[in-house]
């Protein structure tokens, strides 16, 4: 390797922070995009590092994939955002927005690579402070309310996660993740408490039922490029934190609790999906489904763990594509209500393609990676002797698939012709297409043995 691993990680973390200075320059958009691309370059370098510790940091077979997703979506969102918010010109609001995107990316990357559970918690809490500002760029009352709910619910949830970390420190005497993952302990009441607090606490940020209520509001009201960052990469980081706790506290109850919370989250989504009217809230609920599946794969381990990684990768780009497509439609039709978005096929052919493909990808249609990931998780459930749970989960997944695809196809192919009032930029179209294209290659990469 040309650069030492530790230096590469430090540089990877520093660039998005430095991009914050773009605020002071006239070409702040270009600087932000360039910095995001540079971050992606160094993240790719970190991706190629061997698994292990690098000073205060840690790279393993899971976080390296999420790192790549974070940096890629960071690049996509800065480019998309520069087009989506073009009407704001060189306003202070947009400068703050672009700068804070860098800080937000830093907190996510830091949470992933730091080799300390306490500092990981701090990084995840830091994502809340940095991303709340990103929701309120348009300054509408509903945006403010969504940002407030996001802050107060997620922070309260993460406080519970901090109790879990205190209990883990009490039992193991360390918060170093590499030490925790190799440490052994006897099952005890304290570890059971730590596990439950950890799942509920980090599950709040990860959109796991019943502490998910901030998620549809924040995703629904945030600008589309921020919804994409939330859904595609922020939530998987919180679920990754749960994975660390699951691996640390390897007891039967955490397995049962993980399966229970995952299934009940997917059940909740199956119940509410059909009644959604707001396009972005619909995709937010779809994110809950995907996060629950990822958690389930982490809990089951083995082939299901690989299924989770496949879902993380595919979901990141596909859901980003879905939110970018939604943003394009909201800008064109001036409404979030799906009843008001009609005949997309006739009016915006390209967005119709990206919307259909991204929806198929996130809802688990073959041959997308999500479909393969779901198959791996279902088969792992069966091999764990949970055949009835597998059948129940499969039914729920079909219900969600039908609900979300019916709504999208209705928007795309309905015959009414409402007048379009807004135009979308080239950046928006190209990034939406790029995200959807990338999302479709993971199943192929798996089949040729690259993953």
């Amino acid at each position, binding site marked *: 390797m040309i650069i030492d691993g530790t230096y590469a990680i430090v540089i990877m973390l520093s660039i998005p922070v430095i991009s914050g200075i773009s605020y002071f320059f006239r070409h702040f958009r270009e600087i932000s995009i360039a910095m995001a691309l540079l971050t992606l370059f160094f993240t790719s370098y970190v991706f190629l590092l061997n698994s292990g510790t690098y000073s205060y940091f840690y790279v393993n077979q899971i976080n390296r994939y999420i790192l790549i997703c974070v940096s890629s979506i960071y690049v996509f969102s800065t480019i998309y955002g520069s087009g989506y918010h073009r009407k704001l010109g060189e306003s202070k609001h947009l400068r703050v927005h672009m700068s804070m995107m860098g800080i937000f990316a830093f907190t996510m990357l830091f949470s992933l690579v730091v080799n300390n559970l306490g500092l990981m918690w701090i990084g995840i809490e830091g994502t809340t402070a940095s991303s709340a500002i990103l929701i309120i760029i348009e300054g509408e009352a*509903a945006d403010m309310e969504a940002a407030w709910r996001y802050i107060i619910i997620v922070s309260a949830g993460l406080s519970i996660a901090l109790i879990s*970390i205190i209990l883990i420190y*009490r039992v193991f005497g360390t*918060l170093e993740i590499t030490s925790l993952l190799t440490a052994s302990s006897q099952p005890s009441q*304290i570890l059971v408490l730590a596990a439950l607090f950890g799942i509920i606490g980090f599950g709040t940020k990860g959109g796991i039922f019943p502490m998910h209520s901030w998620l549809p509001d924040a995703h629904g009201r945030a600008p589309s490029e921020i919804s994409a960052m939330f859904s595609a990469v922020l939530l998987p980081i919180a679920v990754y934190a749960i994975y660390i706790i699951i691996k640390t506290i390897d007891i039967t109850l955490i397995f049962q609790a993980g399966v229970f919370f995952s299934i009940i989250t997917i059940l909740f989504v199956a119940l509410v999906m059909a009644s959604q009217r707001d396009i972005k809230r619909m995709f937010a609920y779809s994110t809950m489904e995907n996060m629950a599946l990822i958690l389930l794969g982490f809990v089951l381990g083995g082939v299901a763990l690989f299924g989770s990684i496949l879902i993380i990768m595919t979901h990141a780009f596909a859901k980003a594509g879905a939110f970018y497509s939604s943003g394009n439609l909201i800008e064109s039709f001036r409404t979030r209500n799906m009843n008001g978005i009609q005949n997309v096929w006739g009016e915006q052919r390209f967005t119709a393609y990206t919307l259909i493909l991204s929806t198929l990808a996130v809802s688990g249609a073959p041959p997308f990676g999500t479909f393969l990931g779901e198959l791996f998780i279902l088969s792992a459930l069966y091999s764990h002797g949970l055949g009835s749970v597998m059948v129940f989960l499969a039914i729920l997944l079909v219900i969600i698939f039908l609900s979300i695809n019916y709504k999208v196809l209705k928007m795309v192919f309905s015959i009414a012709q409402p007048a379009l009032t807004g135009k979308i930029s080239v950046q928006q179209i190209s990034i939406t297409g790029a995200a959807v294209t990338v999302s479709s290659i993971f199943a192929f990469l798996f089949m040729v043995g690259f993953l």
Partner: protein
Amino acid sequence: MINQEGLDLIIAAIILSAIWAQLGTFMSHKVRIVTIQSILLSLYIIILGIWDSDIELVTLGILILILRAFLTSRLLNAKLSPHQFVSRERFGDASFLSVVSILVLIFSFVTYRILFTPLGYETIGDGGFALLFQGLFLIGSRKSKFSQFLGYIEEENAIVMLGLGIISMPLVIEISVLLDVLALLIVSTVIISDKPETQVFEEMMG
């Protein structure tokens, strides 16, 4: 040698301040009550640090005094409009809320004894657990964003107490948590100052 009963008294005062914050109606008073709570907590930690000759605890106590007691109250007070200073907070039946908060307190004491018995009993841990529930109750029972944020500050104070009762975390983690909460506070004040009460939007239903 310090009298343990004296330290326990400080914890009792912290719990009382939480009940007081539940029942207070003037926002400026509430900010002051939570400031007093943070001062009491920092006092407890500093005394404990001096007693145990633990420089990390003393540092933590001083940082809580500066960041949470002083800076937090300054920031919140600065964001309170003159109207909010003198207006009463609108919430449901005060007598009902006081009964519920006492019930929540009893519930938290009992739960702590059941759940945390294997760790041995610590008054500060018990107090922290009770404060955690009071903070959550304050968040859940109020429409005012100021009250909700004060509930969150109470919750963070509770985590510090719970941590002291279970095991002291490394100082670097404690400091980072304090700074994190401060950052969150700054962001929150921006949002709070726009509309001080939570609202219901039709597009955010379902």
